């Protein structure tokens, strides 16, 4: 077994590195840079029942060490995704995690039921935390009772394990995580973006057409890390962590905080080769530290994992 291979509910991962949803489309574009089979998994772009055009432009704005986006869940709709995008991805030896979004509980259920039957979809990621759509999205992500109920309903119809993607825009992420666990979630992914805003200095108006957007990138890493640290100590669910990951050290940090795997979002835009580059360097780093398996470091920020390994190194 390799240093980097990881087993999670529904997912047999060559390595714990995957692009985060919405930052990688359905993979086609980045397949021009490298073989997608190198990835641990791919979290595909949010899929909704009907096609969506999304928000008006501008949809992105830069901030200090971060960016705001308000794409608005643009996607070609469930049927098209099933017939085209997922089919196309079958040529790669890589499990998919399907990011599911909707405006109503029924939307989530319908999409989940269908998309979970695709042969390469090995898990669902319920996007209850998208800040950029008027209905649904974030509403599901800030009320524990609503999140629990949604999880439960989706679990009933899904053919694959269900991960719930948590929003950081809450008073207590621990409560949200527990609610999802009670609802029967198989895992958590965290964090989605923080709600933020940028104004045009001269006009004073929002730069992003949607006015507010989701903040991602290195700026939010301290918040993401803290939340993974908190949640991993109170639930037994595996966590796929994200938020500002740019290099192998960031991955180590999230694993140390208690995550089981890590996803890379914004950094793909900065360096299209960032995922394969992290995979390679992570392996080298662990080797140079004398760590047999990446999970030897899991949770060592709050437990004693990795102490021995570290001192041996």
């Amino acid at each position: 077994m390799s240093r980097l291979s990881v087993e999670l509910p529904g997912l047999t991962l060559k390595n714990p590195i995957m692009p985060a949803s919405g930052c990688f489309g359905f993979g086609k574009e980045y397949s021009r840079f490298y073989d997608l089979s190198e990835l641990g998994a791919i979290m595909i772009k949010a899929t909704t029942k009907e096609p969506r055009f999304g928000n008006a432009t501008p949809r992105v704005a830069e901030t200090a060490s971060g960016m705001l986006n308000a794409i608005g869940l643009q996607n070609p709709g469930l049927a098209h995704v099933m017939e085209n995008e997922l089919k196309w991805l079958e040529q790669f030896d890589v499990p998919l995690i399907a990011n599911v979004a909707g405006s109503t509980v029924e939307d989530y259920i319908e999409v989940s039921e269908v998309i979970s039957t695709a042969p390469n979809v090995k898990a669902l990621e319920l996007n209850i935390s998208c800040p950029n759509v008027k209905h649904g999205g974030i509403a599901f992500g800030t009320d524990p009772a609503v999140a629990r109920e949604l999880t439960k309903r989706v679990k009933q119809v899904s053919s694959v394990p269900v991960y719930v993607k948590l929003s950081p825009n809450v008073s207590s992420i621990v409560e949200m995580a527990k609610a999802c666990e009670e609802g029967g979630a198989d895992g958590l992914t965290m964090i989605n973006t923080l709600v933020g805003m940028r104004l045009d200095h001269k006009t004073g108006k929002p730069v992003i057409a949607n006015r507010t957007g989701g903040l991602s990138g290195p700026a939010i890493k301290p918040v993401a890390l803290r939340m993974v640290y908190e949640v991993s100590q109170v639930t037994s669910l595996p966590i796929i962590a994200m938020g500002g990951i740019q290099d192998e050290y960031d991955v180590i940090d999230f694993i140390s905080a208690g995550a089981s795997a890590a996803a890379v979002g914004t950094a793909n835009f900065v360096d299209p080769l960032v995922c394969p580059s992290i995979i390679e360097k992570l392996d080298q780093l662990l080797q140079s530290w004398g760590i047999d398996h990446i999970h030897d470091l899991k949770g060592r920020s709050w437990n004693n994992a990795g102490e021995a390994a570290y001192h041996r190194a």
Partner: protein
Amino acid sequence: MIQQENMTIISHRSIAKDIYELILQGSLTKQMTSPGQFVHIRVTSGSDPLLRRPISICSIDQENGQFTMLYRVSGSGTRVLSEQAAGATVNVLGPLGNGFPVEYLTSGQKALLIGGGIGVPPLYELSKRLTERGIEVTHVLGFQQKDAVFYQDRFEELGKTHIATADGSHGTKGFVTDVIEKLSIEADAYFTCGPSPMLKAVEQSMPEVDGFISMEQRMGCGVGACLACVCQVQGDETGLAYKKVCTDGPVFQSGEVVV
């Protein structure tokens, strides 16, 4: 194939108010074939500024493996870029997007190239390619004011060149469309790049002429994955058809997308 490379700065100088000319060398140049394509530049290895900056390819020199960009310092990213000296490297991703169709016209036909401000640069390589093919080129270039004008002499070497400035401090006072109307310039096709209001005005002023329009949009990835840069298709009522400026464009045929 898209690649990224740390390219070496051969020359870097200010050529007009806030406008810099940057010449880079590297094997990536070989991939650059179509005028109107752009590169995506990373200005620092730190995380502020975080995103790449899209800049058009202004001129390609295959012999020396070099290409030229012209850019205006307008914010944090371009400011940091402008501080880099010759000898340093710049991380370049590209070439990206679809450029202007040089083959659209044949020898003897007339092309009208219309540029506004920092939309002027890609027209330079385009003009070289068109004139090489025996096409008669006329340039109409608009700038804010006199000290913002650049590359006038280079364009003049390739064809008739009219300058308009908003304040009249150089060339004709007014917009590029004023010049086009006044001189009633005829053309078999036009090629234009500049701020959206200009593109819109140009498209409306020559409805009967075939045209190619290079669009600008805020970008995330620059490679088609993030859907930051979409624009709508003209006549699409559903709003579901759309084009990505970074990969379907930046150049579109007039009438294709909503400017």
